């Protein structure tokens, strides 16, 4: 049984209501607009819609499987095994996160076309999306492998169980909730991805929703497609939830296990190094190869302009990260303390903002924001929070579930109120996921495009907006300057996380 709250049980409910209300309002407005207004086309998916649903499902499936395998394997290797260069390779895994998928796609296509190579279609899309998104699985799985079940692993090793079997029978089941959370996150990113997928010519729901809404003037058809997208994401989240319920294992180890469990030698070490270096190298190789064509693009923007763009991106990202992580923490804590199913449901719904394609969310916020007369920056922060709260919430939820309720009960029986429990027990244990969440949100906001493009005020371009303007004008070369800065910010954020990763050693 969950411990009773001394004060503010209704306060909790209020917080969750407000948070989920804010998150859902743009979507509800859109649905209302769509369903109330007249319809241009007939209701129904149509051949186009069916192809778009299929396209998105194939992308999600492909990236889900590939990302899960790559992310988990690398997470395992860098967390638990020892081989030369492990530390640097672990840090290097954060590099691909700094590259927006649309930029990878645009530069790869451009580079390919110079050599007569046609980069197009589902295969390339899955590969690029995996490259851009496997880091979610990697981060959450490596965190889990480092923290959970160390004693169990060491026990199984001392019993003579080899690394492979230990992985499949001990470590993997324990880490499954975190891996599942990572897969769900990366899959949601895939559902949302618009630019890269359009460039590669793969039909997708996100493109279909926009085209129907704005191109065909058919909001109802667009709303229908949005519901399909939401359904896919709801399935993903539910599957991930079921996974967590079934593998409910509390970690009673407490401390982080020092040292590594297996040392790799010879060809095994080389294989591990190869696997771990492939994704970061791939991510870096694409822009590098393509920059070889000429550095002239770097001169497209004067330095003062670049600094202004960078300042805006940085400022927005920091603010959004603070707002989002705070919101996620509040929701996660509320969910833990309140056994009411209503709170659980609302908290779940609040995270659904991630499922809504950014361009659709932007539409909803435009429709909301106009009459309300809110400042554009406020709308932007609302949009970022709505979209990215799930990113930090996933990790927090999974981590909180690792803490057995008995600890809360013990603490409250010793006289701590929920605030003290939060401060002295939960927060220290949540530091890792909080940081990971903050990093992911920061990088996501710096890369974010559709919401920023649609809601920003006058003369307020960010780096991502400038990259898009050049790339969509087919001047990918000129996009290099701002793109490099985006990557730089991503790398900076990644390096800020190193201490937290390394502390486990």
């Amino acid at each position, binding site marked *: 049984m969950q411990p009773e709250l001394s004060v503010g049980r209704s306060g909790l409910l209020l917080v969750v209501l407000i948070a989920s209300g804010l998150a859902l309002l743009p979507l509800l407005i859109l649905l209302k607009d769509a369903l109330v207004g007249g319809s241009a086309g007939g209701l129904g998916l149509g051949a186009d819609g069916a192809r778009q649903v299929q396209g998105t499902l194939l992308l999600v499936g492909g990236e889900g499987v590939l990302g899960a395998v790559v992310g988990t394997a690398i997470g395992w290797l860098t967390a638990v095994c020892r081989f030369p260069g492990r530390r640097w390779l672990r840090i290097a895994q954060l590099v691909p996160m700094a590259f927006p998928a649309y930029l990878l796609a645009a530069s790869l296509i451009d580079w390919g076309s110079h050599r007569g190579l046609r980069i*197009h279609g589902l295969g390339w899309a899955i590969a690029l999306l995996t490259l851009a998104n496997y880091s979610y699985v990697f981060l959450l799985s490596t965190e889990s492998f480092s923290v959970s079940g160390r004693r169990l692993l060491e026990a199984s090793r001392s019993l003579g169980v080899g690394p492979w079997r230990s992985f499949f029978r001990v470590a993997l089941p324990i880490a499954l909730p975190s891996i599942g959370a990572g897969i769900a996150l990366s899959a949601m990113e895939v559902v949302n991805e618009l630019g890269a997928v359009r460039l590669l*010519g793969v039909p997708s729901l996100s493109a279909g929703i926009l085209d129907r809404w704005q191109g065909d003037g058919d909001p109802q058809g667009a709303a229908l497609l949005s519901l399909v997208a939401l359904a896919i994401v709801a399935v993903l989240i539910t599957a991930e939830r079921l996974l967590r319920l079934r593998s409910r294992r509390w970690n009673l180890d407490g401390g982080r296990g020092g040292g590594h469990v297996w040392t790799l030698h010879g060809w095994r070490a080389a294989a591990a190094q190869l696997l771990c270096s492939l994704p970061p190298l791939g991510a870096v190789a694409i822009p590098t190869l393509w920059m070889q064509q000429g550095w002239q693009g770097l001169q497209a923007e004067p330095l003062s302009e670049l600094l202004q763009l960078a300042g805006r991106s940085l400022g927005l990202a920091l603010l959004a990260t603070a707002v989002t992580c705070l919101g996620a923490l509040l929701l996660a804590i509320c969910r833990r303390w309140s056994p009411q199913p209503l709170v659980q449901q609302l908290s779940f719904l609040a995270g659904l903002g991630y499922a809504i394609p950014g361009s659709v969310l932007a539409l909803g916020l435009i429709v909301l924001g*106009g009459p309300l007369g809110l400042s554009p920056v406020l709308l932007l922060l609302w949009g970022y929070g709505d979209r990215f709260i799930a990113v930090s919430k996933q990790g927090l939820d999974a981590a909180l579930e690792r803490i057995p309720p008995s600890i809360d009960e013990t603490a409250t029986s010793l006289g701590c109120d929920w605030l003290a429990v939060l401060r002295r027990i939960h927060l220290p244990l949540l530091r890792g996921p909080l940081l990971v969440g903050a990093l992911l949100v920061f990088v996501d906001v710096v890369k974010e495009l559709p919401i920023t*493009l649609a809601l920003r005020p*006058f003369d307020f371009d960010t780096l991502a907006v400038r990259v898009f303007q050049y790339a969509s004008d087919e001047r990918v070369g000129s996009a290099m300057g701002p793109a490099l800065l985006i990557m730089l910010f991503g790398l900076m954020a990644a390096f800020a996380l190193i201490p937290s990763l390394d*502390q486990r050693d």
Partner: protein
Amino acid sequence: MPFKLTAIPTTALATTALAATTLASAIGVAGMAQNRPQDVNVYSGRHYNTDKQLYAEFTRRTGIKVNLLEGKDDELIQRLKSEGSKSKADLLVLVDAARIIRAQEADLFRPIRSAELNKDVPSNLRDPQGAWYALTRRARPVMVNPAIVRPGLIRTYADLGRPELKGKLCLRNRASVYNQSLTADELVRRGKPATQQWLRGLTANFKQPLFTSDTPMLRAVGQGQCGAAVANQYYLARMLQDKNGAERSTAAKVKVVWPNPTHVNISAGGVTRHARNPEGAQRLLEFLVSPSSGEGYAAANNEYPLKGWGNNPILKGFGSFRPSPVSMEQLGRRNREAVQLMTQAGWD
């Protein structure tokens, strides 16, 4: 590691505070700027850096500051629709006739009277009631690799359906609004049955997969993977001026063939329905359209001015063409029908 975990929250707080202050001051300045009634606020679907130089020139001459918001045309239209009378935009600039008509149908423009604009903008390139005026022209000729397809084979767009081009015709996909307008052009000029037949012939000649942008498509033509393609002239002009030598030599292998008549499209601007500074917006429009600055506006992006061929040597090198007599208004109004026909013909 010397970096302590506990230090991070404090640093994070400090950085956030700094960022918040910077952001707040940036917004404050921007906010103040927008409150000056004599500024002109522009929502623009054009996003070429060179446009900014022209707006700066306008400010130099008149003292009126131009605040710019560039974005995707359809999003700007949606934004204006939602903002309604609260909108701060004075001037709306869009690319492609289809989008301009979409904006007009959403009642986003206010008609103005300007003798200067009527003089500088040909009648088929503006709204009869004065809701919007063209700013630049762009043409969509056929681009051919002479080693694969004989240029003389193509005299009109209908020739793209000839059996000699089977498997050699590269085009962008249906989502490209430029192709939609091309189809609308055929629809207006030749009627529905002829257009359907043309589309069938076209799709039979496709080299799959279709492209999602013009420049890689033109490179494919230059490299010999495609025999013919249809693209806007400024992409080729840009490639011919690229600093990369390999790009220039690939582009040099592409020959521009002007069908008779040639499909022409525009980028255009109009004063918004709820503009707070309509006089300023009108002055800006007149400035952009005037022959001297209009040429600068167009030439910087290798587009054509409203009359004649301009002074761009590369464009002059492409030769002259007979523009289609179809008005931009007709192109816009037939866009939905054109897209339907393209879908039916299997143009994906």
